[in-house]
């Protein structure tokens, strides 16, 4: 596997956008990996949370935007509460989800829930889920 790091302002634009949206300084991260060590969903992820930050730091937008990890983050803030640099990763995840093609398909939409399940689910789950994972 080989990636080519682009020089010039292009990668910087992506990083700036993520920082602007999230309000977090992704360069504050020194890659200790503590977020990943404590993440309850890490087992399911293609990229660990610290790797998502790393990819953002390197400006590798395509890799980040393709990652399944974005839709595994439940915003439980465990990483945020233990991050030695106080980075709120849930915000970074949300910022990256926002950058995903705004007109694209929902990562998770109402059609994927059967009426029976919908009857059973607490309201908050639906509101939260659509807020996080649909356009």
């Amino acid at each position: 596997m080989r990636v080519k790091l682009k020089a010039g302002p292009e990668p910087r634009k992506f990083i700036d956008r993520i920082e602007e949206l999230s309000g977090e300084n992704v360069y504050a991260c020194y890659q200790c990996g503590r977020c990943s060590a404590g993440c309850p969903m890490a087992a399911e992820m293609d990229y660990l949370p610290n790797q998502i930050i790393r990819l953002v730091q390197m400006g590798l937008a395509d890799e980040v935007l393709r990652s399944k990890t974005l839709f595994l983050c439940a915003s439980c803030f465990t990483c945020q509460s233990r991050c030695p640099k106080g980075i709120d990763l849930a915000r970074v995840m949300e910022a990256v989800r926002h950058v995903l093609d705004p007109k694209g398909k929902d990562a998770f939409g109402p059609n994927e829930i059967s009426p029976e399940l919908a009857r059973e689910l607490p309201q908050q789950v639906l509101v939260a889920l659509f807020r996080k994972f649909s356009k």
Partner: protein
Amino acid sequence: MTKPQTKKTDKRVGLFVCHCGVNIAGVVDVEKVAQVMKDYPGVSFSANYVYMCSDPGQQMIIDTIKEKKLDSIIIAACSPTLHEKTFQEAARLAGLNPYQIEIANIREQDSWVHTDKDKATKKAIRIVKGHVEKAIRNESLEPIKVDVTRRALVIGGGISGIQAALDVADHGYEVLLVEKNPSIGGKMIQLSETFPTLDCSQCIMTPKMVEASRHPRIKLLTYHEVESVSGFVGNFKVRIKRKPRYVDATLCNLCGECEKVCPQVVPDEFNMGLSFRKAVYLPFPQAVPGTYTLDAANCLGLSPVRCGKCKDVCDKKAIDYDMKEKIIEEDVGGIIIATGYDLYTMQALGEYGGEKYEDVINGLEFERILSASGPTGGVIRRPSDGQVPKSIVFVQCSGSRDTEKHLPYCSKICCMYTAKHSMLYKHRVPDGQATVFYIDVRTGGKAFDEFYQRTVEEDKVLYIRGKVSKIIKEGDTLIVWGVDTLTGKKVEIEADMVVLAMAMVKADGVQDLLKRLKISTDIHGFLAEAHPKLRPVESLNAGFFLAGCALGPKDIPEAVSQASAAAAKIGDLFSQKELSHEPTVVPADDEKCSGCAICITMCPYGARSMDKERGVVVVNEVLCEGCGACAAACPCGAAQQRNQTDEQIFAMVSAMLRE
């Protein structure tokens, strides 16, 4: 607002304008400056020259002072930080008082920062005019002289304090070594083996301790605490509290009978609470002084009626329940602070469970477990059930490098001692699994990296790059949640024991003392050096020197170097016949002082005090550092800084602002 009197002065002021090659002359019209100033009131001589600091330049100054009988001179040249001393020396050779020299900075603050020649020249003239006004009003001053008490106080009896005391004593001066605990030795005596050479800490430390106790010029004051320090450099008065030991150290022969009969069992501090001691105890076998101490806080009652068992069995009649706290006063000329450090509390890291799980311990606890004189006799056993752990996880940066909730700095020695810990574990439990979680391995030091590499290559310790998030317990087993950032895998490891490399923090319980001594600390409570590069073992407070981990995390050789350096600084101080002090201080004018005492509150050095009888402020000029905060606050103009009086400032402002 007082208007400066246009002082009619018969003072003869000379002006020397330097070209500094083209550095000044390229932008400032130096000829013009010299020319314009010729007619300025008070100026008796004005000239310019290509390099004032050169030998001919200096000679020109010397000759002119003599020839023109100048009382005061202004050198318009580079920043005073560069050549003020040079020109003062030249003037001194011509018989002029050094406080009659003014440096007008027309290079760094004019010719080098402006390009418009006309403006720069005008600015140079303003600057020079200001200094002429000041020079007209400068007094000749002599440094203030004070005697030196050639006796040092060392606070803290760890390796830094012991080394400092030994060095000062070997220089030929008397030393008081004050230690708050019953024995000297500090943290180093608790360590097992030291990196990277693996010498036994006690083996190299005990001879030093004994030497300190036997040195004819060292007075050992263990179980003592410094209460307060008054006075100033060369002449400190120290109040020291002697805590009652309830055992006469001169009589105690270490028979240990008292300990056998004592019914009170408490956790042993020396073994980090991993074993127990009695209320009457010897801190550790090699303790210096070698005497038992009765810990009153845990004794059943200091009275033969309550218990009295120890007193009964003591053949030497060394136990004295009536011993009282006592304050002693001593005179010293210089003070070395070596109060050491403590480890960050494990309670602060709830996610690691250090407070909950017995087998999650800190590095110092593990040192005791490794130590041949420790609670397990050097066999590695875990605290909960005494089993030999088959797997230990070491967690570096526990609390360090965490800007958000804990300590932002690197504790510097943990990488090395963790390597040592894991190596020693593998030496003693060859079939055990040692795993180290790290963020970076920092091995800057002589033979450090080789040592670390040996740990990995020869002792097969598994280093995993990632920070642990949490430690949980299932049954008897600890489970460590980590990550390997190199492979991008979240890892969970079972461990029988976890050792946390806790951050090093300011020593517990000395902050009050430092506050009383007005010793400044950094935001983490470590001592602040006078200059981080060039004055690393001095405090900003004259006469105070610093050494060891009280300044910040460091290893043994570095602490010892600092201790020797601080001792050398003491030698430097004591070798002077008398001390000089800058005379540009702020006296109080009796005539003008209303006794409002505002200036006293302004002074950070305690130099000003109230003469209650006369109702005016008096100044100890030796303590005054000349900041002038009091002068600015004085409502009566009674506090005037020598050679920077309000009158001088007003006159300078007028001259600098008026065309």
